[in-house]
């Protein structure tokens, strides 16, 4: 009122934010009541999701302030679609869907989870284990093969055998020298015996 008194040419279209501030005890004018009523209706429409496509800069600024004040009061509830979108975005990031995250598109949570991944890993592991068991069963244990009975020959000096190659022809003057020959035979067979025992991982 004072502002109107000071400036008789001022109208309701003047910027109320930049205009003079009326005193607190001054009664509201009819135009101020009208403006307050229209702003209240604007706030109600905004809260119900029916925000008008066009409004003045002053109304938009006031509307933003009103929205912030209402949100700060703690009683704001998001729309169902918005809530679902936020939750799905968070779960998608937890699953690791980078492509979907970058695109910003909301993917239904049932598709984003990839339920088949753990089953696929478990199935592949089971198949590999079955293949390993089958392979062991087909190949059989390792065995030692005896010469003539297989393709891997047992060393000849591990075997009991005639001593002719070791002793050779016996000269007549040494016909009774069996003591020296048994020494040679024993030493030779002991070498083979020890080697075989060591190869089998046992002490001779």
């Amino acid at each position: 009122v004072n502002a109107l008194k000071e400036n008789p040419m001022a109208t309701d279209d003047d910027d109320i934010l930049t205009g003079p501030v009326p005193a607190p005890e001054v009664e509201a004018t009819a135009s101020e009541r009208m403006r307050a009523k229209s702003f209240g209706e604007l706030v109600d429409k905004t809260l119900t999701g029916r925000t008008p496509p066009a409004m003045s800069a002053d109304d938009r600024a006031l509307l933003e302030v009103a929205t912030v004040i209402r949100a700060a009061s703690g009683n704001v509830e998001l729309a169902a679609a918005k809530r679902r979108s936020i939750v799905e975005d968070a779960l998608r990031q937890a699953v690791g869907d980078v492509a979907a995250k970058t695109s910003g598109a909301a993917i239904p949570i049932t598709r984003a989870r990839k339920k088949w991944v753990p089953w696929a890993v478990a199935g592949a592991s089971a198949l590999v284990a079955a293949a390993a068991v089958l392979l062991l069963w087909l190949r059989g244990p390792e065995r030692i093969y005896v010469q003539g009975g297989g393709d891997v020959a047992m060393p000849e000096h591990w075997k009991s055998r005639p001593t002719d190659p070791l002793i050779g022809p016996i000269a007549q003057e040494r016909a009774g020298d069996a003591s020296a020959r048994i020494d040679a035979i024993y030493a030779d067979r002991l070498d083979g015996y020890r080697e075989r025992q060591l190869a089998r991982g046992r002490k001779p």
Partner: protein
Amino acid sequence: MKYWYGSLLIAVIAITGYISCGNDREPTPTVRTADPAEVIGEDLMISLSKAKNFHHKARVYMSDGKPAEAIAAVREILSLKFPAGAPEAEDVRNDARASLAKLLVGQGNVEEAMKVVTEGIAQSQRESFFVANLYTVKGEIHEARAALLEPTDPNVKVEKRAAIEAYDKSNQINTVLQQRLMEER
């Protein structure tokens, strides 16, 4: 999803089949574990050790002028138990017989010596240098027999002929065995 499982199953089967059948170039091994009678075992080593000790014992007795004890020690070798089928057993016994026969001849017990040698030749399952040695000792025994006879005794020629035959047999066995060993090498 179904295609993925199917592909995995086919891959596993293919890998398993390749590994198990990939060495077809090698012949399928004949499973035959080592026969204990064919390898040098503890029983054979114990028997050989005993034979060695009896020979040493006889040598000590002989050096101490006790031929009877030496003969008894060598006889012990003939009664040693070897693993069944061990070729070393026949060789060791034949060598002990040759040594025993020489000791008996030295004691003038020629007939007993001939018996020891003859039994050894008869019991031998194969020709060996030890059998050839028995024939050599047999020739010596025939010579000893001839030496014990009167020079005019007609058996002298018989014994000398037998000695020559025994030496020839010994040489024949040695020749064949040496030829065989040369071919094996």
